[in-house]
């Protein structure tokens, strides 16, 4: 049996972290008044309320790609494509981490889920970057 390469292990870990990061996004992220909303509801209501800065408003729809990115990262990792899985996980982690960080810094009252999402986003980005780096080294050998 062929042994697992470092890049494959890192990609699998990054994809798993990505799934966890995606899994917290439907949970209550922040509240306005007494109304708690998930990250997807927040993006939607913030767009409709016109409160997003122009620079962010254009990128906000990318948030809805979080589940798809997580799925793509898992498929790539399972198919032993660590470079692709690493790239997808890095993108996913950066997206979740940055979005959660912006929510956390906004004037909304945020829940603990946001902090978890920030941590998972950062960990996914790191895992993805390690997988990418390892895959490049292995390809060079």
């Amino acid at each position: 049996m062929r042994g697992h390469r470092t890049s494959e292990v890192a990609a699998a870990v990054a994809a798993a972290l990505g799934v966890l990061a995606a899994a917290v996004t439907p949970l209550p992220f922040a509240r306005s008044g007494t109304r708690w909303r998930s990250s997807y509801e927040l993006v939607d209501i913030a767009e409709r309320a016109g409160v997003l800065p122009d620079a962010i408003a254009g990128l906000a729809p990318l948030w809805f790609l979080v589940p798809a990115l997580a799925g793509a990262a898992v498929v790539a990792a399972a198919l032993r494509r660590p470079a692709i899985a690493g790239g997808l996980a890095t993108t996913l982690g950066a997206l979740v981490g940055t979005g959660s960080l912006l929510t956390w810094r906004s004037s909304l009252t945020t829940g603990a889920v946001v902090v978890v999402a920030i941590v998972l986003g950062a960990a996914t980005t790191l895992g993805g970057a390690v997988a990418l780096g390892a895959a490049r080294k292995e390809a060079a050998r």
Partner: protein
Amino acid sequence: MSDHDDVWRRPDGDVPPPPPPPPAPPIDPLAPAAVEQSHVRRGGLGARVGAIALGALLLVGGVAFAATQVGGSGGNDSPEDAVAQMLDALSDEDLLGVLASLDPGERDTLRQPAEDLFAELERLEVVDDSFELTGIDGLDLAFSDVTYRTEPIVDGLARVYVTGGRASFAVDGRELPVGDFLADALERFGVDPADLQESDAEDDLASDDTFLVARDTGDGWRVSIGYTAVEAARGSMGAPVPATGMQAIGAASPEEAVEGLLRSATALDLRGAVGRLSPHEFAALHHYWPVLVDEADLPSADDLGVSVELTDLELDADTDGDRARVFIRSIGVDVVAEDFAGGGTVADGCVVLRGDALAAAQEELGLDDDTICRDDIQGLLEDAMDEAGAMSGMGIGGLEDLMGAGLDAEQPAFGITTTKIDGQWYVAPIRTFADLGIAALRTVEREDLEAAVDAVEELFGGGFFGGGMLGGGFVPPGLTDEFGDFDDGGWSEYEEFEDIGEPIGGDPQGVLDPGTERILYELAEGATGDPEAAQCVLAELQRTDDAFLLFELADAHRYEFEPSAEAQDLFFAALEACGG
């Protein structure tokens, strides 16, 4: 090479071929190691297949989810949904929800000024740092079981009536985000916000004549404050909905938008002026203009016999994206009427007067030349303040401080806010006033507010009737200590209002209301120190034919002012009759 290598070397130097490997033992499929290896392989494959299946599910589901969400963030599906969303959001104190339910143009007009206003109030410690636009502690508003009825107006516009439901509100002063400044100021006037405990409920919200108008904004229905207002006006006029409205008049630049508005105004061209206002703020007015305003009835300059000409106009703009503030560097107006011909130009902080305007100013203000500058105006105001100061002996002390506070303050730059919509610039009057108000507020410091409160306190505490309104005043015998000045931490009172009650003092033609009776009893008890004697005094007082005097006495006691001599005589007579 080691010695052992030599041992195995043949004399001719050849190395013997390695011995053939031992034959592999036959594989026993039932051996434990083989079974384990097979499980690992099958397990690894199974895990991979499972991961692929999970990932594919996430991928496909995620793509489908994204496809339904991206680009789908519009308004509501129906007019009722729009109003329901707004009421739900209000119930939840959910500002984001309220903003999302509003017409986008109106929403953008209100949002930034509201944010700026409350940021300034927080800086000035009028509200404390727990204040959030996304929810106000101590304030609770709730709507429940609300039902609606929709009445179409025209395509894309509908009235939404509330046909039933319940509303309630509650205020808890202990939790209100009152800032330090406001708390201090209220304390000086004997008011404790914590005493504010109000709640009320309306069990039936049904109304045949109250409605909100929802508008189809192209991507869903939203509530429009502007359309609600003009539709209410149209309904009261009994006018039909206009088929077409006024065409908004955009300009190529912010300066041209403002100049167009000013020239329309000076030409008494109301339609031209309104047409240049931002459709984001006045879309409803533009639409309903033909039925709200009968242009045939509007007077023209000829009708009025007046000619107004705009002169010396110089503008410049500070543009930031789709918004710009236009500053008037110079503007002049010349007016020619039947018995007047004159005008003036404002530039560089001075006013240059012409014609009859100059003659009038020279006569009234004693001007030496045709120019009045800011320093001259300040001198005139200071003279006026000196006169106001001389009035302090009449009980209007503090007025000069109040006016002086305004004079010394930094002057905000006055700009007219314009907005770009679909490539055209329009004047935005609501944003203009909001921006000016915020700019003025930014020049204020907490010390300025405290000085203003000092001035108000001095103004009203300085000596109306010799005793002041906030302290002193009518002091019945025996109540000297209780009726001390507020500054001394003396008597004060508050009342909880369960419902909106009778006007202060009640109805003089009717029976004395229980509230007034209670206050008079407190007054009598304070004066006599004896509940029985107080009842006697109250009974004596109620024998009077002039109920107004009783209300005056009650109000004087409650609000600490000195009642008329007639009312005082009535009270003392009642005291005397009861042996006081």
